[in-house]
């Protein structure tokens, strides 16, 4: 054995690394799941021609006028049949011939129905001979960087960093406590800080694999942009992962059973899944709760990842979220070192 192999910190870290890699479920959640999610979202929100909207009219000549618009497909049905079709959602709008004009029946809280209303009215007015007062043309945006997939990839990365750190720490620490392994470890001359540090070291080693696999996939398949510096992106991933690890350590510092631990973990992660802007911008939440939303580590992590990848910001421009992440490293770590239950 060489000197490195004799070091207890090395042995502890390599043990953690091995244990993670020998757990097939962990491999799935860490590597496969985020990629599947990105593929699913990429398909769901792929940039396709705008939807053709289903509408209907009560008279054939109205139907012909509607069908002339590329954005609409139209059928003819009488009023009762049309109402039923509206209720079942198979059409978005029914154009009803009135003695003095046309009535549109649709749900104005449904954005697609409102779009259908605009298109239908334009088609009918145009068929009746209306001419545009101002000539106009459309310019479509489909370039990388402004699509939903570009927005969601940093969000998924942040969510994945959180999940793998908290689950990875939480379950294995509580399992070791439950199986009396923690007690056995502290009955040996092992320095206690090394045991906890080994979790962080193996986490960072896995992080490299995890982040490279996920972002590499996003780059190759979706051509997601990397506008900021890559080494800063790496640093941000490390910082985010450390803050989630510290949180995972805190969550698992007392729990004696898996049930208690998994309840706590969900309690900690659920608000962040909802509030931290993984799938849509966190700024959509009301101003009253914004201070809470901003203070969450996942919000800060995702903000910095988006800032780096999408806006090409450097770390100096993202002082506030980085400070929040640093606080989330220091405070939970310090608290859990004090309250950690070794037996």
């Amino acid at each position: 054995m060489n000197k490195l192999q004799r070091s207890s910190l090395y042995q502890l870290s390599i043990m953690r690394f091995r244990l993670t890699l020998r757990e097939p479920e962990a491999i799935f959640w860490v590597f496969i799941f985020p990629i599947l999610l990105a593929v699913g979202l990429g398909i769901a929100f792929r940039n396709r021609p705008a939807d053709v909207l289903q509408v209907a009219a009560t008279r054939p000549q109205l139907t012909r006028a509607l069908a002339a618009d590329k954005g609409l497909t139209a059928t003819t049905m009488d009023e009762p049949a049309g109402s039923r079709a509206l209720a079942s959602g198979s059409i978005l709008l029914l154009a009803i011939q009135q003695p003095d004009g046309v009535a549109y029946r649709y749900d104005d809280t449904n954005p697609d129905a409102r779009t259908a209303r605009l298109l239908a009215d334009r088609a009918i007015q145009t068929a009746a001979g209306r001419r545009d007062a101002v000539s106009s043309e459309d310019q479509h945006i489909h370039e990388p960087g402004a699509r939903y997939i570009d927005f969601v990839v940093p969000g998924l990365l942040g969510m994945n960093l959180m999940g793998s750190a908290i689950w990875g720490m939480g379950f294995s620490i509580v399992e070791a406590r439950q199986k009396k392994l923690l007690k056995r470890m502290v009955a040996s001359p092992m320095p206690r800080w090394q045991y906890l540090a080994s979790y962080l070291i193996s986490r960072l080693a896995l992080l490299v694999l995890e982040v490279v696999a996920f972002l590499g996939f996003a780059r190759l398949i979706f051509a997601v942009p990397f506008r900021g510096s890559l080494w800063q992106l790496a640093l941000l991933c490390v910082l985010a992962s450390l803050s989630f690890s510290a949180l995972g350590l805190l969550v698992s510092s007392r729990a004696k059973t898996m049930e208690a631990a998994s309840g706590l973990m969900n309690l900690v992660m659920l608000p962040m899944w909802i509030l931290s802007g993984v799938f849509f911008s966190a700024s959509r939440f009301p101003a009253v709760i914004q201070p809470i939303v901003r203070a969450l580590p996942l919000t800060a992590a995702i903000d910095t990842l988006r800032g780096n990848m999408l806006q090409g910001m450097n770390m100096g421009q993202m002082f506030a979220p980085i400070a929040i992440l640093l606080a989330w490293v220091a405070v939970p770590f310090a608290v859990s070192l004090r309250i950690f239950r070794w037996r």
Partner: protein
Amino acid sequence: MLNGEPRRQEESTALLLRGVRKSFADVVAVDHLDLEVARAECFGLLGPNGAGKTTTIEICEGLTAPDEGRVELLGLNWRSGAGELRQRIGVQLQETQFPEKLTVEEVLRLFRSFFRRGIPVEESIQSAQLEEKRGARVGTLSGGQKQRLAMACALVGDPELLFLDEPTTGLDPQARRHLWDLVDRLKQAGRTIILTTHYMEEAERLCDRVAIMDHGRVLALGSPQQLIASVGGEHIVEFAISGHESGDGAADAALLSAIPGVHSHRSDAGLHQLSVRELHIAVPRIFAELTRQGLHLSEFRTHSATLEDVFMRLTGRNLRDE
């Protein structure tokens, strides 16, 4: 006190407990315990579950802090010498489960890395006779093999003082004998061993001295032979009575105790126990006395006195009833 006194004590005494007390909530687990274990001795704490054995051994191992009392190991104490002590003792806890997906060799390599000095991993694998299982994952080991791995982890730092908490609980008889052989070899090598057990045959077989514990106290202390001799006889005669000719009740205890050669008598759920020194002399007399009283036997057997009988004499209970 002479200048050389503490030094001499360190050389001869491996473990010293004075007035050690520990309670959990309102349960007193260990009640003013005094113990002294010499170097190269194999010392056993024998008692039923809940007697305070594990609390006692964990106080010795520095895992539980006593409420009061003095604890010294190898002349050091846990307050000032913890780092040094951890290097010099070996510990095997009750029911430790090593990570199932690590191999035997990986677990031992990990534990070896914690000790400044110790034996090579290879040697610890050999001494626990796990050569064939070196590359096997912990999850695939049998109960006995897991226990030998735990033992190997305790030995990998070449400890001066070895603690074994219920080393054979839950093992089948063959695995138990296998582990006993391992402990025998450690004893022959002159290592100090402190073990807890609720198997009296284990204490008899392995220990130079035994402390019988119950409710956090030591009831009796001595070599297994001394303790058995203290019962007053080397053999136990047990019998049960099925019927009575005159029908006036059970056997007369006073008359049974009065038989020459019978040291004591007790009865438990219809089973009479007499301790006797010389079977060939006492048994005919017991038969004669029972016949004289007009009693019919439904059972009659004898066995050599064991620590179990000592425990029963001291507490009126069986070790395993708990």
